[in-house]
């Protein structure tokens, strides 16, 4: 037995790669983290002049990544909602992975925001001097509290590690946490609905930015509801996609295809609903809302690199096509096609967040202002890459040492 042998920590009845290979993989992820740490140090020590952001691009790649990973991390709350509140038992086979991915996405987003704000030490002012009219206040409250919920959901899984679980107190604690998980799933659902919506609301309320502004229902612009729908449509796809990626990398079957097909069906149904509403929203915005501001729809796509192709890419390639694919049983049955449909679904959500952030800021509102370009610096990419590295590390450690996939021993017998 090798001195590095860690098999006693592995979940019961499964196999993992050698410690040497795992260590090498951790080193690769660590390199991304090192890049992020250097970038973070420079941004905190020298200031945000280390980025390419400016007074036109007040938000940059970090906010795009933040919004994107929060949308993709929605698989956690929505799968939790379906599993615990709607009692969809089949999804118990994937809920652990969804929670871990959600935890990574939300904690990563908060870490990133810590660098993004100019005065990180004052981050708590949003709670202390809260402005109840601000969608960002709602986002801050809900993201932070939901991260606590995610930690509570993650803890029992950690306690189920083969060695930790031998300690009777931890065993009992994990068991009881599991029994009341429905409460946290419900809380998480409530919080997540609100902050996913508020992230959309953040842009929709910008009534002096005709590209982003949307009318709506009471205080909630239509983007509030669209962001919720797009998150719950893409979140389950992202969770399944990560599981499929893990299967490819590890060479092991982790969940039955039936589970993946169910996640795909849920994603497909929601995405179809989202795309229909998004089309209606786009039509109304183009014909009525932006026209009232005196800005013709064509103007939004006439300057800089953002032509009408970007709208087609977002709604057709990242919306209509994956929705049709995910609704087709023939596609859902085939591993490769299913993965492609899910990639396109996630791509659509990311594009939407990109467009709402970057294109909103890129398009001048004053008639005598000019289009300003923005290309992130290596420090900005470093922080974004660090979140990916951080995610890989947490997920890999969880996969190696925690019983994430209940079906794994059964599916890989013999």
């Amino acid at each position, binding site marked *: 037995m090798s001195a590095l042998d860690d098999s006693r920590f592995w979940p019961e009845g499964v196999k993992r790669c050698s410690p040497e290979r795992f260590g090498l993989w951790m080193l690769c992820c660590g390199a991304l983290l090192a890049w992020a740490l250097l970038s973070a140090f420079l941004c905190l020590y020298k200031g945000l002049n280390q980025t390419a952001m400016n007074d036109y691009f007040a938000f940059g790649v970090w906010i795009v990544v933040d919004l994107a990973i929060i949308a993709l991390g929605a698989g956690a709350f929505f799968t939790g909602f379906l599993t615990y509140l709607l009692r969809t038992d089949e999804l118990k086979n994937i809920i652990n992975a969804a929670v871990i991915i959600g935890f990574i996405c939300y904690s990563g987003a908060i870490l990133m925001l810590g660098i993004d704000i*100019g005065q990180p030490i004052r981050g708590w002012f949003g709670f202390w001097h809260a402005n109840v009219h601000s969608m960002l206040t709602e986002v801050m409250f809900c993201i932070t509290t939901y991260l606590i919920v995610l930690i509570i959901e993650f803890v029992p899984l950690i306690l189920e590690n083969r060695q930790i679980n031998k300690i009777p107190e931890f065993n009992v604690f994990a068991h009881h946490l599991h029994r009341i998980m429905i409460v946290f799933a419900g809380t998480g659902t409530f919080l997540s609905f609100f902050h996913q919506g508020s992230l959309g609301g953040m842009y929709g309320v910008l*009534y002096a930015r005709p590209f982003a502004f949307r009318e709506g229902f009471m205080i909630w612009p239509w983007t509030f509801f669209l962001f919720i729908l797009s998150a719950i449509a893409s979140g389950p796809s992202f969770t399944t996609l990560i599981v499929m990626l893990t299967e490819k990398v590890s060479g092991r079957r982790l969940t039955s295809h039936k589970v993946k097909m169910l996640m795909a069906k849920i994603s497909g149904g929601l995405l179809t609903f989202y795309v229909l509403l998004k089309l209606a929203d786009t039509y109304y915005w183009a014909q009525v809302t932006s026209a009232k501001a005196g800005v013709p729809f064509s103007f939004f796509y006439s300057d800089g690199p953002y032509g009408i192709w970007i709208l087609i890419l977002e709604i057709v390639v990242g919306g209509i096509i994956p929705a049709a694919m995910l609704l087709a049983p023939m596609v859902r049955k085939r591993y490769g096609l299913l993965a492609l449909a899910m990639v396109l679904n996630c791509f659509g959500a990311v594009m939407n967040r990109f467009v709402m952030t970057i294109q909103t800021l890129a398009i001048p509102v*004053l008639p*005598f202002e000019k289009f300003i370009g923005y290309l992130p610096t290596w420090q900005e990419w470093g922080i974004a890459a660090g979140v990916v590295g951080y995610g890989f590390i947490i997920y890999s450690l969880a996969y190696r040492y925690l019983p994430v996939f209940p079906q794994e021993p059964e599916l890989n017998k013999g």
Partner: protein
Amino acid sequence: MPVATGEHLYGMVIDVDKCTGCGACSVACMSENNIGTLPDETDKIRSITWLRVYQIDNGRPYPDTEVAFFPRPCMHCGGSWGGFFQQDADPEGHHTPCVSVCPATATDYDDETGIVSQIPTRCIGCRYCVAACPYHARYFNWYDVPWPGGLEQSLSPYVAPRMRGVVEKCTFCYHRYQQARDKEFAGGEFGEMDYQTACTEACPSGAITFGDLNNPEHQVSKLLRQRHKHAFRLLERLGTNPKVYYMTKREWVRKRADNYLPGEKIHRFAVGS
């Protein structure tokens, strides 16, 4: 006219036809409000200019070229009291675009004066207000201001310099309002000339007029009454409801102040009524 709930409603009228684009207003503003010179002032999209002077032209070739200047301080928007884009009946209305979005209440609309304040020591630097402002009147401190060679000795004691990582903007020289109120408190009179912004005083051609829009005796009110046909505001149809008015007799200048659909006629909003 913006709605006022308090005693005063401070605003500005800028005669575009009088402005020569000399930039004295910008310089006076920087000096008055302790706006520093950044380490790299070639990077203009990070420069801090509370009052920026935009140059526009009529887009026609020489010899028909005409030029005009839009000095642009913070518009101190009152929010849309007439609904989205001032066309719909919307009893809810909107808040000032930047005020409603700030998560930490670091910027506020003062009902007593109509001035949009900024509290740098409370700002967390999220820059959501910068994104919300269509006038680019808000500036983020991307750098620590170096104040080289004893320049800090020339700082005004009435305005706190801002630190790196916070947003700042024109305050209509609010410290001068406080000084006028102090004078009034001590038994003096608070007259029109007791509270004037630095840019107004510095303008050599008298293009900038500042005062209380609620006071019919103040020059700003008189100007808006007498020349209301020539008055307009930037991006008026968005419904931000600015308190900075511009005046021009030139139709092309007025047209460049807002966005219009192809073939659409200029919207004229009632001013001074």
